């Protein structure tokens, strides 16, 4: 297996040459809109004013709105993939909140899941347990008796890269993820200084094994962040996304930006549709996010008219997120 693409990019090119990551014109929208004519998806925006509310009930109600319940979960092996990026003492906007992880785990358990595990392969920090500790997740895992899997270090399985957005022929995946019946992406709602937004699709970067791809999954950065996101989503085929938008991050995301209180959990079984909805909630245009445009039609719909919005409306909950002051990001608001 040779996972390394030979694209020559400097860090500077990656940082400033974001034209590939941020979509360009309205022409692209028309083509993609046409391509996704047969794609429809339901997305729930659930009101969750804080982490101290009964989040398990919020999750269950939201999933019921999507038509999901015990029959969908019973007997399944479930892997929850939160977004745990870096140590973050006192900065709740960086990582998926532990109480969201707990709520989803308890909901799945009460609906009869055979097994619920939590797995993450942090991008920057090789010591996953340090991130688990400093994110505040460990006491929750212990109390709820939830096993944690360091996806960076898990056993490796290899799959053909069926989408081939990148030049990688095969993708190495953690065995825990391959063996799971339901993979649930549990990201944080955040801006991202390279690709605009990081949500349920980009969160799956963290599912890729660092022992193979390096830290922070550097081979995939080399292959192109946007194309890699698409290849990973197509290979992993996640069943569900639940985005922690209770406290989100704006500005210099995904690590350094300030908190923005949104008070929502956003759920859906189609990840591009969930991420497009979140992007609109953040006050951005999903047709300006390169990897969402590339996903349109192939992995799901991103057009507002193709997404059946349930629960809260976008208009009632959208806010104007701040962006890092960089020309390549300003286009997100147009």
């Amino acid at each position, binding site marked *: *297996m*040779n*996972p*390394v693409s*030979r694209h*020559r990019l*400097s*860090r*500077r090119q990656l*940082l400033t040459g974001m034209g590939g990551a941020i979509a360009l014109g309205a022409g692209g929208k028309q083509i993609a809109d046409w391509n996704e004519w047969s794609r429809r998806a339901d997305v729930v925006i659930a009101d969750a004013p804080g982490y101290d509310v009964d989040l398990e009930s919020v999750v269950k109600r939201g999933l019921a709105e999507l038509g999901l319940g015990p029959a969908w979960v019973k007997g399944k092996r479930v892997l929850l993939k939160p977004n745990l990026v*870096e*140590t973050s003492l006192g900065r709740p906007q960086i990582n998926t909140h532990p109480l969201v992880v707990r709520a989803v785990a308890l909901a799945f358990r009460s609906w009869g899941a055979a097994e619920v595990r939590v797995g993450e392969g942090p991008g*920057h*920090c*090789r*010591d996953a*347990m*340090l991130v*688990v*500790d400093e994110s505040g997740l*460990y006491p929750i*895992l*212990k109390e709820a008796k939830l096993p*944690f899997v*360091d996806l960076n*270090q*898990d*056993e*490796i399985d290899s799959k053909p890269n069926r989408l081939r957005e990148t030049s990688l022929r095969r993708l190495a995946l953690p065995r825990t993820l391959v063996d799971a019946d339901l993979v649930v992406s549990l990201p944080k709602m955040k801006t991202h*200084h390279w690709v605009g937004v990081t949500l349920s699709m980009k969160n799956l970067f963290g599912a890729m094994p*660092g*022992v*193979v*791809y*390096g*830290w*922070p999954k*550097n*081979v995939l*950065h*080399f292959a192109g962040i946007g194309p890699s996101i698409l290849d990973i989503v197509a290979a992993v085929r996640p069943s569900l996304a639940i985005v922690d938008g209770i406290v989100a991050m704006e500005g*210099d995301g995904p*690590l*350094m930006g300030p908190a923005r209180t949104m008070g929502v959990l956003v759920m859906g079984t189609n990840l591009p549709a969930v991420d497009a909805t979140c992007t609109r909630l953040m006050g951005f245009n999903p047709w300006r996010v390169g990897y969402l445009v590339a996903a349109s039609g192939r992995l799901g719909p991103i057009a507002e008219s193709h997404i059946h919005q349930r629960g809260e409306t976008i208009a009632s909950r959208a806010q104007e997120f701040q962006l*890092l002051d*960089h020309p390549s990001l300003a286009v997100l608001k147009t």
Partner: protein
Amino acid sequence: MDWRTTARRTILDGRRARDGAWGRDPSGSPRVEPTALALLALTRDDDSPAARSIAVQACDWMAGLQNPRGGLPLSAGLEESSWPTSFAILSWNVLDIHPEARVLARGWLLDSGSDEPSSAGEDPGGWPWVQGTFTWIEPTALALIALALEGEERHPRCLEAVAMIHERALNGGGWNAGNKAVFGRELRPQPTSTALALIALAVRGERSIVTSRAVDYLSDALKTIRSAASLGWGLIALRAWDAYPTEADVWLAQAHELCQERDQSPASLALLLLAASEAGTRLFLPTNSKSPPHEPIRDRR
């Protein structure tokens, strides 16, 4: 029972009978990094024939993985050589075995690198995790540690790598995984990156404002860290810079207790054992090298 005895026993129990190597956990397939750390921990202050025999078998397993050009993959079944090569060199050097494999591995490491040009179009120095991608602090530090043990610390690539580590030091102390800043904003230090960078710089032993700030950051950060990998590497680094905290024994026992309830990986336990003794730190420094003098490899770029 003393936690060290328990940890040692757990490591031995996790060894795979078939090949004498270690995986991420006892049921996992064997890999170079946990095997290297486990064998170093078992032999750090035990020179008995039994301990050596176990370590030699593990080193032989690593030698069997070596590609013809000298690099090692993560584990059997994967072809591409990458960052585990440094751990193999370190192990073979400490046990003073497999001289031919060491020469080949050293050569591969000195020839391998990044495809990343700096803003001035020059090689920025250092090593990537995976051949041909960007350079990062941790693989650079690991390569420097291994190559210094092999007597290559004056090789131009090592000198460039030391300069790269200095250049990427954070103003507030310590190192992030890679860059110093993104979009002009300084990143936060990480304990493991800082620890490995400090161990690599301890080879030269030159104190500077960079090393002092990093030692200060790490000394403060470790007070609240009980995850084994970060604490283990962190304490090894502080000992290498004569800043080993007086409370370290208590911290290590607490970390071991935590390992027992959540992370019995041989690599984590091995790092705690290595951090617990002076001998554990010395393994990473050239003063301990049993490597016979050799002709340094010339820069072939």
